[in-house]
């Protein structure tokens, strides 16, 4: 195990999160051992620390915020998801949310690690320049990805809402349902996450907007269109909920669909080339086209 290799660390992180997830499931299904009561939370913190270190190492390699390929972007979103959970966990005890989050982080992380195409070594290319030549764009990208992390947490909360609702409608006291928070609390948590996510995304767009407004040759990229679309979509969902037009299960389902669109939109972000012999094109060299 090389603790200086970001990929190996990410595998370790995925393993820790999956262990946390199974520990949470054991607890749910009454196989809880009192000695291991806080182990899930401790493991999440350890996993998060390794996750942070792995992204830091990758950041050193790429000389900037590691958002140059699909693996990095997804790992950054999952990191943001766990960070958001840890902040929420400080305010109230939500072990089940932690289980869901670690499950998603483990699955998403492992999946993206198994696909080599998701992680080209673009920083090893000839004439590689920093991923973000402009700090404002770097800020824009990292804040946008962090807001996606919040939207991931929102979708986790929405899934929990739908499970609890289904359990209540089926009129049975199933084990999973009895461990989940009340549906009214889940809806309140969802709307708060949505508000905070929109705030971060708005800030990200404003930062990017200021930079692009000063550029002479600005082209509206597909990614930017999707980001704006997501911002509008999430804002509309918020307004509809505020006006009591969209609530309950429909609200939860909408946020889950938007989360999948958010994830799918990552493919629109151009990924740096893996081929070390091939010089980068001028378009690839232009950082503003990447985010």
């Amino acid at each position, binding site marked *: 195990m090389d603790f200086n290799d970001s990929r190996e660390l990410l595998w370790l992180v995925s393993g820790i999160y999956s262990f946390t997830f199974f520990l949470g499931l054991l607890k749910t299904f009454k196989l809880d051992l009192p000695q291991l009561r806080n182990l899930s939370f401790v493991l999440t913190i350890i996993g998060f620390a390794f996750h942070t270190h792995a992204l830091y190492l990758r950041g050193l390699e790429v000389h900037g915020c590691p958002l140059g390929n699909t693996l990095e972007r997804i790992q950054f979103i999952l990191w943001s998801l766990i960070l958001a959970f840890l902040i929420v966990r400080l305010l109230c005890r939500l072990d089940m949310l932690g289980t869901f989050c670690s499950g998603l982080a483990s699955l998403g992380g492992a999946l993206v690690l198994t696909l080599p195409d998701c992680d080209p070594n673009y920083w090893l290319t000839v004439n590689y320049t920093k991923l973000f030549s402009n700090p404002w764009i770097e800020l824009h990208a990292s804040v946008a990805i962090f807001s996606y992390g919040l939207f991931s947490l929102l979708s986790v909360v929405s899934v929990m809402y739908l499970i*609890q609702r289904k359990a*209540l*409608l089926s009129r049975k*006291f199933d084990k999973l349902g009895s461990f989940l928070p009340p549906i*009214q609390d889940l809806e309140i948590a969802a709307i708060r996450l949505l508000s905070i996510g929109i705030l971060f995304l708005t800030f990200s767009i404003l930062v990017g907007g200021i930079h692009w407004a000063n550029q002479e040759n600005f082209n509206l990229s597909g990614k930017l269109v999707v980001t704006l679309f997501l911002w509008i979509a999430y804002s509309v969902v918020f307004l509809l909920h505020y006006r009591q037009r969209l609530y309950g299960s429909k609200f939860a389902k909408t946020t889950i669909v938007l989360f999948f669109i958010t994830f799918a939109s990552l493919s629109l972000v151009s990924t740096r080339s893996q081929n070390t012999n091939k010089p980068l094109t001028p378009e690839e060299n232009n950082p503003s086209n990447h985010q």
Partner: protein
Amino acid sequence: MNSPSNQSLFVLGCSHRVADLSARELISLPPDSIDEFYDGLGKLTDLDEYLLLNTCNRTEIYGASKKNFSINSVLQYLSRFQNIEQEFLKRHSYQRSGCDVVSHLFEVTSGIDSQMVGETEILGQVKKAYDDACKRKISGKMLNRLFQKGFQAAKWARTNTGISKGQVNLGNVLCELARRIFGKVENCRLLVIGTGKVAEMSIEAFKSRGSQAITVTGRTFEWCPLSRNKPNELVEKFGGFALPFSQYKDSLHLFDVILSSTTSGLTMLGYHDVYNSMKKRPSKPLFLIDASVPRNIEESVSKIDNVFLYNMDDVSEIANKNLKSRMSEVERCKSILGQRAQKLWDQMIQPSIVS
């Protein structure tokens, strides 16, 4: 358990296990006679420590003596005090001594000897009885140790086994369902239509969890609005408000939980009543409980978004499932508590403690 050391600790008791309600009523001590009972008990020769546990389901006298004290003298005293025949008392009581007393107390405090397995009220009652004995200075080294260990055993059993998991009382099941929908039950506004036993049980359960906004309505309210009637009686008993029967349909949107428990056989809440009320509170869930047979709430209301409808079959099924789950834990719990009791008893009969 016939060694001399076993004679140092005993219990004479009567509970639902050996006596039916009418027998328990005869044996149970009225609260105002407890002082007198303790006075007489203290006069029994060679009885060093004693404690009375007197609840609606259980009358038990725990005692400890350094000499060869006979439990029969307590039995005779109780029969004299309550004016019941000794044979009758023998038939409807049990006697334990030595380690069996420790096991018995552990089972009592942990709730596995209760009529409603795993109930927690008994622990409070035992604590109260122990506090009372401490204040009277009639509990000594032996009983102090026994009861303090009994409280620890109860905590262990509730934490480490499933004997207290899940609600088994109908009112508590409804509160648990309300908690899963709204979070804090104390913030729920409850409307009760009808004044049956289930209604009373539910009001009691909601009230005990701090719910303040309880409203009761019923048909008898209309029949005699100026005299005492059932809704007012319930309101007086538990606190809350009485709502005229003719107004409840217009106020549905003000409530989070609505329980219907009437024998009218009429539809108290139809699809359109609930649909119209939900228009005024679309994003807030509504929990409906139909505790009536025949049913008072149209089944179709469950199709409305954010409405959760339960009938008595659903609630009973949940309660029975929880009870079954608790029962499956009883043997495991008994076995572990037995081991703990033996360990404690071995320590208690050490010469330094007994003599």
